[in-house]
């Protein structure tokens, strides 16, 4: 599995992925951070009818404020990671490279496991960059809004930084896991992206607007809730437990299919 992991890293280090993925990651992170600070008000606004809650000045000035924008970016970054994980599998089918990989590593579980872990590792590293970028953007934004930042650089602030980072990584990896499983099952980039993005973007939002309990069950909403450390609809623990269950089911179904299916691409 280690060889599969290292081999996947070689592929992920190509300039197009670093430049393209990095640009989108930076764009999403800065956008979420800017929106977090510029939409903040003295009283804030609770989440309702599919709209996210906005922050309060006091909340942003708290120890948790430095990474509030980063946490809000997790949903957007999740879509990016979803696409990365999904296409990393479908492109192996589309280019026919899967047959090459399997003649080099016929133990399919190891190949799949190494590939998945490499994607997770790259995602975790990219999220460090996103965290630093968001923090760098948050400081001047806070000053421009007159928000105090002394609470950020405390022991409690560092604790929030670590937990927000961990939650954001968990959230985007859950998005990635869904993409990975869809990629394995559907094999076609167009089909898998179409199904996945249609579900995560319009369909979940439509359902959310018409079903009050959707936040407790729909995977995309739950992934986002994990990234934000829980919401006023679903607690962090409940969201994490259900997303772990969803991820386990997705990986089990995908790996079973991958292990058993003929490779004809």
């Amino acid at each position, binding site marked *: 599995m280690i*060889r*599969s992991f*290292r*081999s996947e890293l*070689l*592929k992920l280090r*190509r*300039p*197009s992925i670093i430049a393209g993925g990095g640009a989108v990651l930076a764009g999403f992170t800065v956008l979420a951070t800017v929106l977090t600070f510029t939409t903040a008000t003295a009283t804030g606004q609770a989440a309702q009818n599919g709209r996210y809650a906005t922050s309060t000045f006091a909340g942003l000035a708290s120890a948790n404020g430095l990474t509030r924008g980063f946490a809000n970016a997790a949903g957007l970054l999740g879509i990016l990671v979803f696409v990365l994980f999904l296409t990393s599998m479908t492109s192996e089918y589309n*280019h*026919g*490279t*899967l*047959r*090459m*990989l*399997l*003649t*080099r*590593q*016929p*133990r399919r579980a190891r*190949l799949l496991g190494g590939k998945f872990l490499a994607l997770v590792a790259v995602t975790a590293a990219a999220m460090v960059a996103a965290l630093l970028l968001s923090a760098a953007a948050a400081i001047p934004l806070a000053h421009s809004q007159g928000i105090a930042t002394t609470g950020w650089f405390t022991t409690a602030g560092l604790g929030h930084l670590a937990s927000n980072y961990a939650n954001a990584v968990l959230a985007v990896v859950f998005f990635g896991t869904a993409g990975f499983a869809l990629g394995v099952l559907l094999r076609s980039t167009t089909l898998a992206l179409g199904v996945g993005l249609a579900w995560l973007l319009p369909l979940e939002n439509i359902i959310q607007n018409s079903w009050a309990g959707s936040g407790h069950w729909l995977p995309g909403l739950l992934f986002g809730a994990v990234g934000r450390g829980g919401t006023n609809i679903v607690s962090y623990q409940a969201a994490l437990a259900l997303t772990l269950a969803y991820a386990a089911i997705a990986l089990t179904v995908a790996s079973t299919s991958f292990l*058993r299916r*003929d*490779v*004809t691409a």
Partner: protein
Amino acid sequence: MTPTTSVAQARESAGRPQGAVTALPPSGGAMDGPAIKTHGLTKRYGARTVVDGLDIEVPHGVIAGFVGPNGAGKTTTLRMLLGLVRPAAGEGRVLGFPLTAPAGYLGQVGALIESPAFYPGLSGERNLAVQTTLAGIDPARIPVVLTRVGLDGRGTDRYKTYSLGMKQRLGIAAALLGEPSLLILDEPANGLDPAGIHEMRDLLRSLNADGCTVFVSSHQLGEVQQVCDWLVVIDQGRMLFQGPTGQLMAGGGDVLVVGCQPEADLPRLAALLARRGLPAARIGDRLSVDLAGVADSSQTVAEVSRIASAENLTLIELTVTKATLEDRYLNLIPGGPLS
């Protein structure tokens, strides 16, 4: 038709020198059996049977050609040998290991299945590095194999900038990375220019001389005839022939073409030949003598020459036309020409 023949016999039968026979691979799986052996190998997709009870046996140390029309089941068979496709029935062994345990033998197998498959955005070298990393092969092999296939100096170029022939060469290079004792190639000459095809032929011979068994599927029967000393012919998933190339080529079909001047003497010459037990058919301005069953065609050539000379007939052509593998193949395949 599954004759048991040694490598040396196959070589001799194919007209290749005994000296070319080299030592078998020194280690690995069970090397005392054939390199590839299948029994009743079958693959079905739904109601369609693509491979139907194949009993293949490829001895160690040969260059074996795998021939059949499009859709005959060649690629599916190769995929089963490489563990990519699960057989519906039957069994097989590659380098002594069962098909159900491809991890046991794939480290000693180099393969190119269908078109080369690489990552377009990566360079040739980086593509090969993906494979060496995955398989635990020494990366020092990368420049070696690139040189061997004539891609030295182009390894840092992105794969998507390669021509079709260069892509094919990179595919061969990838197959050679692990210094395989068995090479399984599917149409390796696709996209190569005549010089490239010639180089490919030399490469296969050279690898074989180094002890590598080669199992190569191809539609280029001329190439197969020149390179392969063992043949496996299938159609519609079923075995039509397997054995030494020479055994298939010895099946008759050679003709002696005779021309004389003036052309008006042809009937007299035909009558003379018929009296000596050499019936000749007139085809245009030549006579054609069927050499079926003739062990040594040079004796017949000498005989015709003597007959003509004794009757003061002037011969202007006396040519033995050998039946080609294509002729033999077309005779084997039900329904005639290559589809």
